[in-house]
């Protein structure tokens, strides 16, 4: 039975590997892209967990792994105490009602051939939540909730701007009354002056409906503003997880430090005084990640042990850090 003291979502040692085959038709497996390679975290009810990292670090795949699209390679995804990895696809389909997603690209994530009404009503129809005229009434209510004029229900996605489309995507995510929403880069396709509108909307909705968010983004300033706790990913693994102020004010992992120092600040005086840690090289391929710590090829501090043993994630003064060298 669901227990309100346990976290709404707990992910344990999640791995999502994509098989690489060689040969025509009946290819044999020659390797795997280790997109997510042993990730564990929990999200408490009503909180926002930020998941940050650079492209290819596995943050979006982690989000997709949670909703079982595709089914992860191994690990546990406990949603309200139920392991989504173990349930059959029909039970999973019913559970997904509580687990919705808002996508990055508002141009690609709305079906161009459906009206706004059909798009937003779909989750209600799929999950049998409303019937007949009540559906339209609920669509109108959702549109008002996300700040759109309810009269737009007969229009098609191409008639809206990026920001408005993202509002439609949010209305669709809310249609089934979910408790948990995964926001995958919800504002990165939008202009600066529009981004703040969507951030404020997501915050208001969280308060109003006591929503729990997993907020996936690469913009560290936005994540700081939006999240309660933040997990930093690098090459398929979490390297550091801490409260927002701890993480930003006292980063422990060398990658977190470098990442934060790379973000330009909108303040000319401080920018000139800042010491920047410029990382050498690039992220290695997730097909052949380095032995030991995944960050060892770029880490300015790496020692012999870092090339031999993968660091376990451990508690260091309130932070969870995966680094041999942090004391």
């Amino acid at each position, binding site marked *: 039975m669901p227990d309100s003291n346990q976290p709404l979502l707990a992910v344990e040692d999640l791995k999502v590997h994509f098989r690489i085959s060689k040969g025509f038709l009946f290819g044999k497996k020659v390797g795997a892209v280790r997109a997510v390679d042993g990730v564990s975290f929990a999200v408490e009810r009503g909180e926002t967990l930020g998941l940050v990292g650079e492209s290819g670090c596995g943050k979006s795949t982690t989000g997709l792994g949670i909703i079982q699209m595709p089914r992860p390679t191994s690990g546990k995804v406990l949603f309200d105490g139920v392991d989504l990895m173990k349930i059959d696809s029909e039970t999973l389909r019913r559970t997904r009602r509580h687990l919705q997603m808002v996508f990055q690209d508002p141009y690609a994530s709305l079906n161009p051939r459906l009206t706004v009404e059909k798009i937003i009503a779909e989750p209600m129809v799929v999950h049998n939540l409303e019937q007949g005229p009540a559906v339209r009434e609920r669509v109108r209510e959702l549109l008002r909730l996300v700040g759109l004029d309810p009269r737009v229900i007969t229009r098609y996605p191409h008639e809206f701007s990026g920001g408005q489309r993202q509002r439609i995507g949010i209305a669709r995510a809310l249609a089934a009354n979910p408790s948990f929403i995964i926001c995958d880069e919800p504002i990165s396709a939008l202009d600066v*002056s529009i981004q*703040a509108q969507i951030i404020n909307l997501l915050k208001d909705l969280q308060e109003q409906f006591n929503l729990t968010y997993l907020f996936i983004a690469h913009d560290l300033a*936005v994540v700081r503003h939006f999240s309660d706790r933040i997990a930093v990913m690098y090459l398929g693994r979490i390297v550091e997880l801490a409260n927002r102020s701890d993480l930003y004010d006292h980063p422990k992992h060398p990658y977190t430090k470098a990442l934060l120092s790379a973000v330009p600040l909108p303040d000319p005086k401080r*920018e000139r005084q800042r010491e920047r840690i410029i990382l050498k090289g*690039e992220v290695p391929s997730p097909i052949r990640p380095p032995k030991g710590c995944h960050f060892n090829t770029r880490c300015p501090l790496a020692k012999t042990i870092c090339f031999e043993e993968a660091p376990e994630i451990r508690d260091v003064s309130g932070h969870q850090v995966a680094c041999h060298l942090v004391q």
Partner: protein
Amino acid sequence: MGEPLLRVEGLRTIFQTGKQVVTAVSGVSYSVDAGETVGIVGESGSGKSVSMLAVMRLVPSPAGRITEGKIWFRGRNLLELDSAEMRAVRGKDIAMIFQDPMTSLNPVLSIGRHLVEPLKLHLGLTPSQAKTRAVELLQMVGIPDAANRLNDYPHQFSGGMRQRVMIALGLSCNPKLLIADEPTTALDVTIQAQIIDLVKRLRREFGMSVIWITHDLGIVAGLVDRVIVMYASHVVETAGVDDLYENPRHPYTLGLLSAIPRLDTAERTRLMPIPGKPPDLSNPPKGCPFAPRCGFSTADCLSEKPTLREVAPGHFSMCHLELSKQAFINLREVRVNA
């Protein structure tokens, strides 16, 4: 101060499709001094990229046309040059690097071919001299094992490495002016830091002017001497970088600065978005282009377009009102409490 390196006067660029005319750049003027780095900030559709394509005479035609204005570069009006003369300027005196390093390199030419060609064409180097210089350029932008990579093709390089190749290409003929159009937008933040670091170093070594087009107010803060803010095809504000961030005078600039969350503040004050969306440029508002979204607009603003005027030494703003930062803070209080 003598004549600036680049002086743009009353530039107007339109795009025509059927009967619809979109004014992408309407009467824009600015200048860039020798050795100066200028940032052009604006959102998509503000005209920042098109105004730079106009300088390169690369506005896509026949839809796009420069209808008015002068572009003075080292004593010559670039708009009066014939195409052969313009070709001699492009790539040699003025170089441009683009946002997407994936599509700006020719996929069927090796990196060596890309680099050698302008060296032979503009500087008259022999094939072997050009090859030696190409290797030097790749080393300069930090590509490891440069000599062996000349025969590689663009797809064999990562995004950050391709942008380095683009920069090497841009700098190959020692240009006087480098125009960088969102060169780091497609890159990750740690790679962006590498590229910015590289451009800062090279700009010192080459003593060139740089125009950096971006929507990121953070990048501009640490990189440029002066900022030009564009909105809906107009320059709405321009000032020295410190002055602009400390004492912004145009409501749009003020709005942008308070709409972005900051990495360096712990307080979680509510963001203040700019309401609405940018105007439709095929049917622009009669008065100030920002008036429909501005919290301060008066009847004048809706009927009459303001001109860009000097509000403090070297600080220009296109606004009817004399606004201070305090006025904006007051407005913010009113809005947030409402």
